[in-house]
């Protein structure tokens, strides 16, 4: 370490302490869940406190480290509980939501970016306004439409349709913003070279918009993977629960199976957290450039 670097370290030390404080706050709940998951038991208390605990006992109790490391919770939640099936439900629903969501948003985003047609402004504004619709207001009508009219209660399709649709406004706004940055001349020259309109869209515009498409896909996937209320309302049969509904099943109401919950949470969080880190750059640029500024 040369002299300048060390000086800067020293000058920055108080700031590092501030940041470290937030790092601890950020990491603690997650470490705590990891500890419960690895403790091999269902209780929140992964350390047995004596009847009259000393300060050190208590310090031990809040230190996120289990008495012994056991993977029993992971094995058990997968083997003894229908959790595997719930994860499968979530995976199918989120996967299909991604495909459908990208299709719907990329076509609509292209229309709103490239064409000037009557109803364009109204359509875009209505997407914005729809973001303010309180979900609960639509829950009862949606229930009537999907479950009573279309008979799609407790099915994958019903959830996929709803998730792909509620992701549309954000994705369309973001994709529209991105499409706007692709020069029109590229398309015009392709048209002159004899490409069809569909070819221009599929071969030229979509590949150029890869980052934005990736964000759309991620967003749609996260919508499907993380959504809780709609799934809890539409999926009546236990076997059709999605992972969020199932996790809440472990610790909601009077059941206190924190071990299953913790192990399940880690399993469920891992893919989205990984995806998030992989695509966060695009998500952020999408949020700042596309959706927010209009």
């Amino acid at each position, binding site marked *: 370490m040369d002299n300048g670097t060390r000086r800067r370290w020293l000058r920055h030390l108080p700031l590092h302490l501030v940041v470290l404080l937030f790092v601890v706050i950020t990491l603690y709940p997650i470490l705590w869940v990891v500890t419960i998951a690895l403790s091999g038991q269902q209780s929140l208390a992964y350390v047995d406190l004596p009847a009259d605990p000393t300060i050190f006992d208590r310090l031990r109790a809040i230190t996120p480290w289990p008495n012994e490391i056991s993977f029993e919770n992971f094995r058990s939640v997968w083997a003894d509980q229908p959790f595997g099936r719930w994860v499968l439900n979530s995976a199918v629903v989120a996967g299909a939501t991604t495909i459908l969501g990208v299709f719907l948003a990329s076509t609509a985003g292209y229309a709103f970016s490239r064409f000037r047609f*009557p109803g364009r402004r109204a359509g875009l504004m*209505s997407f914005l306004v729809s973001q303010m619709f*309180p979900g609960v207001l639509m829950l009862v009508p949606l229930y009537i439409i999907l479950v009573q009219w279309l008979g799609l209660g407790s099915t994958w399709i019903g959830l996929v349709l709803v998730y792909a649709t509620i992701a549309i406004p954000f994705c369309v706004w973001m994709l529209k913003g991105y499409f706007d940055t692709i020069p029109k001349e590229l398309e015009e020259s392709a048209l002159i070279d004899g490409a069809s309109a569909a070819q221009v869209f599929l071969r030229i515009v979509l590949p150029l918009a890869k980052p934005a498409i990736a964000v759309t896909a991620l967003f749609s996937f996260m919508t499907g993977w993380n959504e809780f209320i709609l799934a809890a309302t539409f999926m009546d049969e236990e076997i059709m629960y999605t992972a969020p509904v199932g996790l809440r099943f472990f610790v909601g109401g009077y059941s206190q199976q924190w071990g299953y919950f913790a192990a399940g949470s880690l399993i469920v969080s891992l893919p989205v957290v990984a995806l998030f880190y992989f695509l966060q750059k695009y998500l*952020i640029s999408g949020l700042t450039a596309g959706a927010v*500024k209009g």
Partner: protein
Amino acid sequence: MSRNPNPSRRVGTGLVLALLLAVGAGTWGLARARLQQDRQREARDAVILAAELAELVGRADLEPVAVYSVVQLFAELHPRVAVVRVIDLGAKRLVASTAVADTGDKTAPRRLGLDEKELYDLGQELRAAVETNRREGRSWKPEITVTRRAGRFDAAAPVENAERDGAVVGTVLLEIVAEPAAAGAPWLAALLALAVPMVLFVLLTRWPRWPRQHRRHRRSPERPVLMVTAAGTLLVLAVAVFGLWAIGSLETGARRADEELAARLADEAERSERLLVSLGAADSELDPRRWDVDEYRRPREVGAAAQTEVLGRRLGRLVTWCGGLALALYLFVALGSATRTGHALSHHRRAYAYALPAMISMLVLVYFPFFYGIVLSFTNANIYNTDQPLTEIWVGLDNFGEILGDFDLVEQTAEGPVIDYTSFYWTLGFTVIWTVANVSIGVSVGLLLALILHRKGFALKPIYRVILILPWAMPNYITALIWRGMFHSQFGVVNQAIQILGGSPVSWFDSPGTAFVTVLATNGWLSFPFMMVISLGALQSIPADLYEAARVDGASGWQQLRSITLPSLKPALVPAVILSVIWTFNMFNIIYLVSAGQPAGSTEILITDAYKIAFEQYRYGYAAAYSTVIFLILFGYGVWQNRVTRATEGI
């Protein structure tokens, strides 16, 4: 652009389409109303038969031989009655049966089999209903049931014993063959209602010889207006006449049904008396009016004509609505808007084709539910009346009045004033505080961390960034459930930490203040990374020479922050704040999963309150009104923000 080449064709097309719509809907409505009328009549017949047989069996005192004769004769006299069963509830016996299966070794009288438990249960249910109604002195539960099955009606009625104060001792169960639907659709009338106005229209356009050269040389404005008005009048007249005729025909049918029924009742009484005579038991007179009862065995005060009034009103409403719709359609086509819309559609067909899939799914799954929800907010829809038409449960602005008019925020009780946490204004106030607190925490923490991380040469910045972004990446329902566990009053780590510091454990969800801390901590934890990342991005885009120049001018760090950094951040931060205000305002998961509104609904925000009204109290209409208010608040906020910040300019 020669937009209107031939106005008379346009007006004619509009007229035909509109007539098809209105008359078609009216015909369908009338056919359905007639079918319902038939069903009502048949159900009423079934009740009469069941009540009559129950009385006869009661007079035979459930004595097997006598009941056998009654049942046999009754079945002979009423060919539509396919099967009769009589059950003695006390002895659990099948006293008599005309079912084909109950022959041979299963011939009545015999004990009921296990597979006949359903029949017995139905009998017990009716007995319980009669007893409850008598005890409470009102009509609570149905005493006679009529169920429509494929091709038949199943009716059941209690048998009373006159000597034991009318105690229910048995049940009669009848299977009655349904009559084939008598009423068809009114084709002739529909055809007339379609044809007459069309013919008249054609005559009108041909006969008075509108001066043709007028149209060719100078476009005379009166002519199309005259024609449009004339055809519109024809349309309205035709629909009105058809609607009035349809309602009249329903009423005529009902009156005829009433007359027939009166005759039939007299006939029934005569037959039954003959039946009693043949059994040698004609001691007392039968009153046929006691059989024409409703499901609570109250004498039916209203006849078919009165029942029809409801059907007629419904039909009238249908015709009015569809007539209005048809008129709109007519004007749309006749005035040329349809042509213009068609032109626009074909001109921009590629754009519309691209936008179509998304627009359709938005229409079906977002906009329609939204407007349906708004409509529901004017009704008192709840779990018991979802199958009723909306017009029957319409309450106008009552829900809104109830929500917004609840000013009694503080209740005076014996223990002094108590805040009514279920009041809308408490929840609104709490939601606003919740939103402001969360967004402030998010912005200040996020901005602070961003400013630190952005410092030139700050070591370990990528690692810090990766870690600090973690709460954003975590699914928020998991975050919520984790924090709920950490605030557990007995095992939660927060209370352990408090005890280390010498405090005593806190029951976090027992008072509004501490419960607020829990939800705030949870939401603060998961919302600061968003602001941090947005700020970091914006900080990077500030050109370094601005600071250079400021330093040359001798500005202090604080001055640089105030005059350069913060103003440069504004364009990025303002939209982010708007977004996070809306998100937080509707942050359902955190409240619902962490505090669940405890204690006593004091930490409920508007959206969770609305959810609980809908799915725990099942007051769908009231919940819809509640959500509509939430929407209006957010919409007002959005419009105001938009005006202040001009965020959506230039799209």
